[in-house]
């Protein structure tokens, strides 16, 4: 029954997971670049984003065609909508990696502070784990695992605040402050990657239950 259509849905989901996999490579790359302050690796991460964008646009185009030609309903419709949303979240993660890479390049001529770099690397590692969990929970329709992302995100948020607090201490040293301000922005980018992973978790819950609910209300 609707073999062709099922094949198209499977291909969409595979396309999303592949995009997620290459975003993970981008996150890994930018974390390594931060740790080693490797400007060339930063350039690679920046260039690599074209690949992520191309895959996202291909996914979006395929979703447009499936919506137009197959008019999915019920669980199929939720899957297509969840893939469209989640694909965009993944694409945004790639953009965050580009920003972190650019910031690392921009501050490469300044002295680094190891405590802040360690916090950022810690954030990046946690984000990588969160993205893996979000992709895995989506693939397995595992709502409980998806809900667990909220707890992981709290740890990323805490590390983000630590970076901010650390940089506040540089207020009397203009050069350290310039470097620190750029690291605050990089931390903010990781923090957004964590949020995007939680968003994918929320899409998993929507896909399975048919109800959309934010895991936490970020507006308060």
């Amino acid at each position, binding site marked *: 029954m*609707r073999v062709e259509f099922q094949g198209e849905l499977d291909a969409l989901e595979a396309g999303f997971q592949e995009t997620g996999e290459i975003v993970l490579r981008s996150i890994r790359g930018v974390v390594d670049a931060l740790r080693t302050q490797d400007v060339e690796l930063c350039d690679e991460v920046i260039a690599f984003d074209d690949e992520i964008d191309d895959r996202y646009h291909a996914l979006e185009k395929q979703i447009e065609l499936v919506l137009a030609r197959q008019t999915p309903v019920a669980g199929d419709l939720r899957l297509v909508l969840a893939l469209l949303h989640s694909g965009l979240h993944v694409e945004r993660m790639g953009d965050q990696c580009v920003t972190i890479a650019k910031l690392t390049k921009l501050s490469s001529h300044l002295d680094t502070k190891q405590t802040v770099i360690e916090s950022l690397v810690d954030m990046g590692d946690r984000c990588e784990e969160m993205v893996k969990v979000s992709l895995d929970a989506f693939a397995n329709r595992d709502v409980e695992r998806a809900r667990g992302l909220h707890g992981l995100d709290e740890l990323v948020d805490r590390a983000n605040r630590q970076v901010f607090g650390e940089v506040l201490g540089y207020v009397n040293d203009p050069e350290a402050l310039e470097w620190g301000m750029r690291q605050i922005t990089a931390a903010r980018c990781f923090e957004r990657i964590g949020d995007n992973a939680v968003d994918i978790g929320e899409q998993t819950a929507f896909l399975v239950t*048919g109800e959309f609910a934010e895991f936490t209300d970020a507006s308060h």
Partner: protein
Amino acid sequence: MEAPRIDSGRIAEVSHGLDRSEVERREKVFSVSDLSVAYHGNVALDGVALDVHKNTVTAFIGPSGCGKSTFIRCFNRMNDLIPGAKVAGTVLYHGQDLYARDVDAVEIRRRIGMVFQKPNPFPKSIYDNIAFGPRVLGMRGSMDDRVEQALRQAALWDEVKDRLKDGALGLSGGQQQRLCIARALAVNPDVILMDEPASALDPISTTRIEDLMHELKRDYTIVIVTHNMQQAARVADMTAFFSVLVDDEGGRRHGILVEYDSTTKIFTTPSDKRTEDYVTGRFG
């Protein structure tokens, strides 16, 4: 208190069917319980219970042989005309038993009009097609006004007003179907039953019939059987999914009601896996 600076009221609302609680607040037109229909002792439909509410569109969907056409014919006792058909259970129409002995089936069919899959105008003029029912029933008032009003309600007036004396069979299929709807409306019905009203029509004519349903539900209660699931999704407030139950031992098949809910629910998060499989095209 100061007005909020961000006005959420400016976010446009998408028009969709009524939700279930809105529908259920409306007066019950039909209340069906434990209904079964058999033809010459063979059960075609069994154990159906549902309510149809006033000024709503209710759609029946399901695979061939699920009994949806049999069911819609119970609402105006059309099964009485089929030899060997036996209806058991209760169909209340505004609280009165439709199958009670003292009920006049002809009066029922005036109050509960029907439009069929294939347009079936009489081989008479456009005017006479509409005037036939009111004349037979001896309805009072200006016949010209009645004909015009019915044709207007069926969104056909502008296309035929200059050729009312022409034969109805000269109209296009879509126009003939709207003529049949006008003919049903001319006798002041309460309910319009439509059995696959657009399945023989092209997409433009289908759209006109669907638009018409949205208009007509302000004044009438509409029940529609359709094979076209997207049509149900577009026009209906409530949707009932019927399926075929195959008897384990004898292999006999009969129709059952699987799920009845708001159309939005049926097409987004149906409760029953059989409904999900059908609306997503994985079964039937």
